[in-house]
């Protein structure tokens, strides 16, 4: 697997195209690590969204019980 890069030497201001060879195994490993991290992030975000939704629903119910909100209140999550 060849990585194609643009390398800027800040002293000479020269920009050149460079290539870096990495093994297919290394590239696959990097991709898998990244996919795993992305999946973990997606799950965390899903859990956070659900936690917030549940908390908001409970809070609304409590406020209705206390007579501070009308029963037909609608909140978009």
């Amino acid at each position: 697997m060849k990585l194609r890069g643009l390398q800027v030497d800040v002293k000479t201001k020269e920009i050149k195209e460079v290539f870096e060879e990495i093994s297919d195994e290394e590239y696959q490993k990097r991709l898998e690590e990244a996919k795993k991290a992305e999946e973990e992030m997606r799950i965390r975000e899903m859990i956070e969204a659900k936690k917030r939704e549940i908390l908001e629903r409970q809070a609304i119910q409590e406020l209705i019980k206390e007579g501070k909100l009308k029963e037909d209140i609608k909140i978009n999550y």
Partner: protein
Amino acid sequence: MLHIIRAALRKFIQLEDTPNSYSGLAGKLFKVNSAETALEASTNTDSEIAEAVNVAANVMEKVAEVEVSSDCDYVEFTGLDGNSAWFYILLATAKNATSSAYDLYLYVNGDTDNTHYYTQQLRANDTSISGTRINCPTVAVLGENEGCLFEVKITKDPNDYFRFFSNVSRFTGSSVEEMIRSGTKTSTITNITSLRIQAQNANAIAAGSKFILFKARRG
């Protein structure tokens, strides 16, 4: 004969290739004209020039800029001296050349092993805010074929750890999102000599992506 010439040319303004008068030239410097045939007064006074030099010494200096002309994997700045610059600031607007979302990593001194870095991120999507810590140096995430704007502040801290934080604007219209990240390396460094922005996916930094690197201090 010589004493006659000396008597005639006792003043600078009497020469043929100099101004005929000093009137209105207080504080001005003299320079060779553009035709390289005579001396003329500068537009600015010496104190104005000195002030401009002082201002220049106290503003950030652009180190380099790159506009990606065809899709690539990474953009790397070499020949840096973080010990002299103290702080670098990278301004970037990047586009995803692929139809898969991917991370943009920031590597220092050629160390492209993701496990040598950690990043803490906060993501704000409307009223939903989430946080996570990942074992890689992600400075931005680009959605499918999406563009984004981000800036990264970079330094080597007094304990010699590489540190950065980034601020990202991604997605468009009513889906616009804010992402803030703070990252570090797991081991110390002696200097910052190179910085590389690399896409997680192959050939994924699209043509038209722009990067400008500034340094905060003139060494």
